[in-house]
């Protein structure tokens, strides 16, 4: 198969979505060799390894899926300093990386993005359109509350809840004694 800009872009997106950080790093490092016309001139800093749309799509999907390693690779290879604060104007639901991370429910991702300089806690005053919910609201509406519910398999959480209910009377009676 001869690599073309479009299928290289698909490969980059797929690697980001599935969390294959190493594969992504190889693709990004060899992108210009694989498809020389993929390089898109950037007014601020020479050239981008992949197109802006490919980059933002890959970044947002990796944030949503909680792939911290992938986001690290994407941000490291991007020439723009403030790439972590890209705003996606094509969607109404979530326009920033923090919003995508909160939809996905990965707290490690949120921590990493804030450490990397992502804005968004003060979403309404930082130029993010009012039509989009703040990151905290997206975490609420997607039900990402405590750690147990999200880090364990749903059936384990159900088992935990049932055990908790089952043990409650015993615990109460042992306290009264």
């Amino acid at each position: 198969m001869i690599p073309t800009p479009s299928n290289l872009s698909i490969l980059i997106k797929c690697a980001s979505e599935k969390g294959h950080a190493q594969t992504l790093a190889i693709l990004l490092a060899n992108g210009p060799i694989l498809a020389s016309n993929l390089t898109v001139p950037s007014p601020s800093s020479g050239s981008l390894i992949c197109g802006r749309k490919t980059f933002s799509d890959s970044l947002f999907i990796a944030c949503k899926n909680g792939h911290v390693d992938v986001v690290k690779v994407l941000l490291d290879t991007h020439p723009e300093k403030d790439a972590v604060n890209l705003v996606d104007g094509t969607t109404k639901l979530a326009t920033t990386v923090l919003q995508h991370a909160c939809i996905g429910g990965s707290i490690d991702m949120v921590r990493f993005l804030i450490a990397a300089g992502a804005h968004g806690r003060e979403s309404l005053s930082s130029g993010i359109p009012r039509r989009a919910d703040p990151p905290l609201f997206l975490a609420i509406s997607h039900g990402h509350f405590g750690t147990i519910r999200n880090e364990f398999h749903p059936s384990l959480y159900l088992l935990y809840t049932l055990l908790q209910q089952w043990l409650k009377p015993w615990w109460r009676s042992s306290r009264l004694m």
Partner: protein
Amino acid sequence: MVKTLVEELAFDVNEEGPFGSALRMAAASGRPEILQYLLSRPECVREGRLESALSAAW
């Protein structure tokens, strides 16, 4: 996650979104555990928001 966002990363529970408060969002999404948690926060402003949350849950 909401707990960590609020307690560790200082996200504002009183922020207003395009469709109202965080209380309203929790009620409208059918998340009683989150609603309870938000109401338990000392900094949470309830005035005028509880009614809205109640109507959203209704």
